[in-house]
């Protein structure tokens, strides 16, 4: 069909597609050139090396080109492109348009390839004699990433998915037989409301930099074995592993902070498969990093170190497979759906797995494996044990998270553990006990050989001290209510913090080399402490004991954490008195103002603040709530909306209300009439009102008062929930007919009519309509208290500082050697 479509902008797409193909071709050329540059025996012949570099530059430039074209398409709202249509819309602000860039899987791969290209450029500048073999591996990885963006049919199999796919090619629809179809597509689908958050702008770039940087130690390991430079690759690999572990760690914690700040699952970590997958490579990389240092210092544990480093990158690829292949299905809330790249992702993993196994097997006999046994009282032995346990913790995570993969592979029908959070907490908690303990007492050991009695005395001393602090912490935070293993985690974490604080203070006296690791371990210990207390002693503030209830409900749903509150009706909740004050709309968010007040025992107001949890209303996604949190130094008060009455698109105007008078009355309980004189009081359910005076020249909007017409207003002062409102319903006689104009006080759910004048009694009749409770505006919310969560965030920052210190030390060592 050769329809000529109107209004399409095909140039940026064609250009982008050309860049995609160039980036693939250039990466391939670069990998081949670097391969021959490595195997070339003529040391003076630099032609392959030059070609490899030029091709790599070309690859980097074309990635920038793809990015520019894609940005152009998104920024100009060219919805003829599927990517722009699917992930952005006209109303998105510019910073979300940037985020829209990596909203889809193609954008993710692009970002990954971009960082890997940047790291490649760093290697070209810094790697010196390592450039050829290391860049061979990096370029190969770049080839496979570029292939993910190709979107070309090869032998009947679609290779990759192009970000420049046209909407009419991506989606079937009769609309596309119309050459003028674009004039019907006015807007894109927009970004998933859950992602419209500033974290979406900064989290993915950090995470993808972390993922890309895991490839560098991997490339060094392959290069070291391939080039038989068995011991030399370790030093640069330590530096790059430190960098990778730092960035990846930050990326993961950023994701968790994002979840905590603005998603609605009520916490910072949910053990969702995609979350778990993001820490697989971190665990093995940190383990590998430690074993590399062991090897560097003693010559032991070479194979373990190499395997862990190789495995880290394989797990990065596996993580990508889990998140993108659709294999997780219903097991995860945030996995992507399959873009038809299942097998391509599998092949990506298999290529690098095969490469890893091949270098190990081919070089096995030459590897520097020591036959000598390690000393029990040496630091490296226990560092090695710690690394093994990090690896085992990763093994457990991989095993459980991959249940859908086992089902797909073996045709089994296993379901994830029913109480999966408890399962992960207990098992991972047990590993944390061992690991934290090791990060503690290992510090008292020297490399190679230690004075045994002194070691036991100091270890024990610190342990007793840690136990005392732990007892205090466990008692004050209420951690004793939890399983014993969590108290052990607390004990060993505090122990680790204390010991490393001692190492840090010693380091100022001279052994400054160890300061970095001490700081990083303190940070890690604080993270464990913070996560443990916050997750373990999380308190439900909004405990609701009202209702029909279900006795002894199964554990998870036992908390009854949702309370319903009516507008302007103060409700007691824990130590707080909360009042739902009203809502405000700032498209697409609806904010619900909840006022928190706290009184001391004498009834004096000690604290008052406003939280505005919001809900996004999206025609396709429905309602997505987002919490608001009051941060204190030592705890957080977290509030989010869990249910709402159906939201009316536009509140009815006064005129509309007049027209639908009959219908409107149905929204109220049966009216009650009161005969009152000025100064009299009328009581109603929520409070009382006083008729202050009668106003002889009341005015009603848009109704002129002619001579002979009478308009009287009843000035009412309404007091409800400690607030005073004024209302003036009007009674009117116009051309001998009586009318009355009711007034509403929405906050209290009242409608007031001045229904009759009773001259003989010198009174007037006021009709009070009161909304039944169910018609009053309400929200259902839940409030949680996360104690000491700031330890988790500050621990992360401290750990990063530790990584930076170690990184600068290792880089100095690299320069001197």
């Amino acid at each position, binding site marked *: 069909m050769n329809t000529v479509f109107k209004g399409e902008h095909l140039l940026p797409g064609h250009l982008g597609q050309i860049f995609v193909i160039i980036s693939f071709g250039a990466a391939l050329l670069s990998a081949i050139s670097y391969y021959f540059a490595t195997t070339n025996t003529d040391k003076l012949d630099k032609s392959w090396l030059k070609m490899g570099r030029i091709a790599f530059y070309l690859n980097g430039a074309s990635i920038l080109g793809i990015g520019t074209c894609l940005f152009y398409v998104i920024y100009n709202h060219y919805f003829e492109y*599927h990517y722009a249509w*699917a992930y952005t819309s006209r109303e998105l602000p510019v910073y979300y348009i940037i985020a829209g860039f990596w909203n889809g899987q193609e954008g993710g791969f692009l970002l990954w390839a971009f960082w890997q290209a940047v790291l490649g450029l760093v290697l070209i500048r810094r790697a010196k004699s390592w450039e050829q073999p290391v860049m061979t591996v990096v370029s190969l990885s770049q080839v496979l990433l570029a292939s993910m963006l190709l979107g070309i049919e090869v032998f009947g199999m679609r290779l990759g998915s192009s970000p420049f796919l046209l909407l009419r090619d991506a*989606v079937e*629809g009769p*609309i596309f037989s119309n050459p003028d179809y674009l*004039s*019907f*597509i*006015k*807007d894109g*689908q927009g970004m998933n409301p859950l992602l419209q958050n500033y974290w979406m702008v900064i989290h993915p770039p950090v995470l993808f930099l972390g993922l890309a940087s895991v490839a560098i130690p991997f490339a060094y390991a392959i290069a070291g074995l391939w080039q038989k430079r068995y011991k030399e690759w370790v030093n640069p690999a330590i530096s790059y592993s430190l960098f990778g572990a730092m960035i990846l760690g930050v990326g993961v914690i950023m994701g968790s902070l994002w979840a905590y700040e603005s998603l609605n699952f009520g916490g910072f970590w949910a053990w969702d498969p995609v979350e778990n997958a993001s820490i697989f490579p971190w665990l093995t990389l940190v383990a590998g990093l430690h074993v590399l240092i062991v090897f560097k210092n003693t010559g032991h544990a070479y194979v373990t170190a190499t395997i862990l480093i190789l495995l880290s990158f394989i797990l990065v690829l596996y993580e990508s497979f889990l998140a993108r292949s659709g294999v997780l299905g*219903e097991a995860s809330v945030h996995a992507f759906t399959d873009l038809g790249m299942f097998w391509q992702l599998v092949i990506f993993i298999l290529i690098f797995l095969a490469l890893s196994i091949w270098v190990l097997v081919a070089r096995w006999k030459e590897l520097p494996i020591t036959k000598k*046994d*390690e000393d*029990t009282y040496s630091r490296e*032995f226990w560092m*090695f*044990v710690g690394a*093994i*346990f990090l690896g*085992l913790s990763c*093994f*457990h995570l991989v*095993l459980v998270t991959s*249940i859908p993969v086992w089902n797909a592979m073996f045709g089994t*029908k*296993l*379901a*994830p*553990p*029913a*109480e999966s959070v408890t*399962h992960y907490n207990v*098992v991972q908690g047990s590993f944390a006990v061992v690991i934290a303990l090791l990060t503690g007492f290992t510090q008292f050991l020297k490399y190679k050989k230690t004075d045994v009695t002194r070691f036991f005395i100091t270890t024990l001393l610190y342990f007793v001290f840690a136990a005392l602090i732990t007892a205090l912490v466990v008692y004050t935070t209420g951690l004793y209510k939890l399983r014993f293993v969590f108290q052990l985690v607390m004990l060993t974490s505090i122990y680790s913090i204390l010991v490393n604080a001692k190492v840090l203070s010693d380091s100022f006296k001279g052994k400054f080399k160890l300061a970095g690791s001490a700081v990083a371990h303190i940070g890690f210990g604080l993270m464990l402490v913070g996560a443990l207390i916050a997750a373990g002693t999380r308190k439900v503030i909004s405990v*609701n004991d*009202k*209702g*029909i*209830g*279900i006795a002894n*409900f*199964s554990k*998870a*749903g036992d908390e*009854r*954490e*949702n309370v*319903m509150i009516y507008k302007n009706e103060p409700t007691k909740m824990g130590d707080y008195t909360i009042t739902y004050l009203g809502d405000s709309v700032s498209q697409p968010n609806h904010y619900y103002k909840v006022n928190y007040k706290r009184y001391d025992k004498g009834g004096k107001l000690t604290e008052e603040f406003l939280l505005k949890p919001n809900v996004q209303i999206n025609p*396709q*996604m*429905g*309602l*997505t*709530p987002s919490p608001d949190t009051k941060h204190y130094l030592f705890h957080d008060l977290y509030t989010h909306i*869990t*249910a709402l009455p159906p939201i009316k698109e536009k509140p009815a105007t006064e005129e509309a209300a007049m027209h639908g008078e009959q219908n409107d009355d149905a929204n109220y309980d049966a009216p009650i009439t009161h005969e009152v004189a000025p100064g009299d009081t009328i009581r109603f359910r929520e409070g009382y009102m006083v008729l202050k005076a009668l106003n002889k020249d009341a005015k009603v909007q848009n109704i002129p008062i002619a001579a002979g017409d009478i308009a009287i207003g009843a000035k009412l002062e309404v007091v409800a929930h400690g607030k005073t409102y004024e209302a003036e319903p009007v009674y009117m006689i116009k051309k001998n007919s009586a009318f009355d104009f009711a007034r509403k006080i929405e906050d209290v759910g009242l409608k007031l009519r001045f229904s009759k004048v009773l001259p003989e009694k010198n009174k007037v009749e006021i009709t009070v309509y009161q909304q039944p*409770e*169910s018609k009053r505006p*309400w929200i*259902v919310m839940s409030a949680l208290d996360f104690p000491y969560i700031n330890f988790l965030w500050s621990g992360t920052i401290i750990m990063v500082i530790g990584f930076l210190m170690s990184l600068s030390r290792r880089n100095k060592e690299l320069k001197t050697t």
Partner: protein
Amino acid sequence: MKKSSILGLVTIAVAIAVIISLYSSTSTYGTFVDAKNTNGSLHVIGHLDKQKELYYDAAKDANYFSFYMTDKKGNECKVVFSGTKPQDFERSEQIVLVGEMRGNEFHASHIQMKCPSKYTQDKVEVTEASAKKADI
């Protein structure tokens, strides 16, 4: 025995322990009939019966939600959940419950639903767009 071999044995022992702990804690996917016959909790996949009542009245109890679900074998059962009604529950295509049978009611501790979301399904919404045809 060398220390490295001891460590190797410990590692293998822990690995086996992990596998066993996983094996003992994995749940199974079942039906309501299976749920009646087992004591522990299990996963049930099915779909919402849209003909029957979805009950959630925040004014009466903000933590009680009940509905009827048909499992994969076609058996229907009343499901009770202690919590609020998940947003857009009516639109769900598939529901995965984790929980156990109590009498004739299935008490779910966890509900996961799959919605026909625009983010996973490509459908051009012509209706919305064509309403604006006038301004061409």
